[in-house]
């Protein structure tokens, strides 16, 4: 029953997220709204974390498993993208590497900047 209750809360949050997404004037992904709702639930009551613990861990630990059917879905569109396969793969890889580098250097840079400002304040 405990696990059933946890799943009930999670699905309820997702369902509420979908409802709110339909009401918003701009297109906004329902799962992100569900994430925000769940976060509000967590900070509103400290006990909510342990109430959701097990099922949340289940989803987090098996996240990559959940992507298998979507990955297999590639066979459905394969014929239409066969001709531009090389550019598609190249674009995915190049942009991922560049995004990784820019993000990492930005975070490191801003952390160093903050430390420098903090150090100057101390002096």
């Amino acid at each position: 029953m405990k696990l059933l209750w946890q799943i009930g809360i999670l699905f309820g949050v997702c369902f509420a997220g979908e409802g709110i997404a339909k009401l918003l004037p701009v297109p906004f992904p329902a799962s992100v709204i569900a994430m925000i709702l769940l976060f509000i639930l967590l900070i509103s009551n400290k006990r909510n974390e342990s109430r959701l613990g097990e099922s949340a861990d289940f989803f987090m630990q098996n996240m990559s498993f959940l992507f298998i059917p979507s990955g297999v879905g590639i066979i459905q569109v394969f014929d239409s993208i066969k001709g531009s396969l090389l550019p598609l793969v190249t674009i995915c890889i190049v942009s991922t590497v560049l995004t990784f580098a820019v993000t990492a250097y930005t975070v490191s840079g801003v952390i160093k900047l903050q430390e420098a400002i903090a150090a100057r304040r101390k002096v």
Partner: protein
Amino acid sequence: MNDWLSSPFFGIILCIAAFAVGVYIQKRFKTPLANPLLISTALVIIFLNVFDISFENFNQGGQIITMLLAPATAVLAMSIYRQFAILKKYFIPTLAGCLAGSVTSIITILLLCRAFGLDETLTSSLMPKSVTMPIAVGISEQHAGIASITVAAVVLTGIFGAVFAPVMARLFRIKNPVSVGVAIGTSSHVGGTTTAIQMGEVEGAMSSIAIGVAGLITTVIAIFL
């Protein structure tokens, strides 16, 4: 036979079996190239082809698994909550990194698509590929992209991130676990995060946080494109 295979249990069992093989191979060879998601996806595709089973039959069960991606995304709130102290400490660097990364991702994709002469539909389908699946598909459809191409690009990006995140961290000499985590989450969403979690608690937490933040930022940018 076809009638029997259209049971939702078939697709779910096939995925679990393929994933078990993938996890076993990864434990056996201990190389990031032996990614369980990559192996199991390939195994399922080969299985369907060899036994001539339609994607529709497979997807009776498959769509149930895909549906669970929504609660799995929501649960990211849990990892943000658990690492709230770190997020508060690194709030501005995280926000700046996710913003810079999301903008980089969108601009490089738009420029590369133009360079390769890809049409509008393909460009729209690729544009949100660095963010997590449900967000990316939403943005793609909103811009007249093709959802399944977006799914393919998102999965490819996720697998690439999962396999090469440690290599990229070494290549760019990123030592700070906060920077590594945010970079993985921003560039390769949940796929890369599975590797980030294995790299360390801070990497995993920052990566999970970055999925949400980069997803939010990309959604907002996409509204104006």
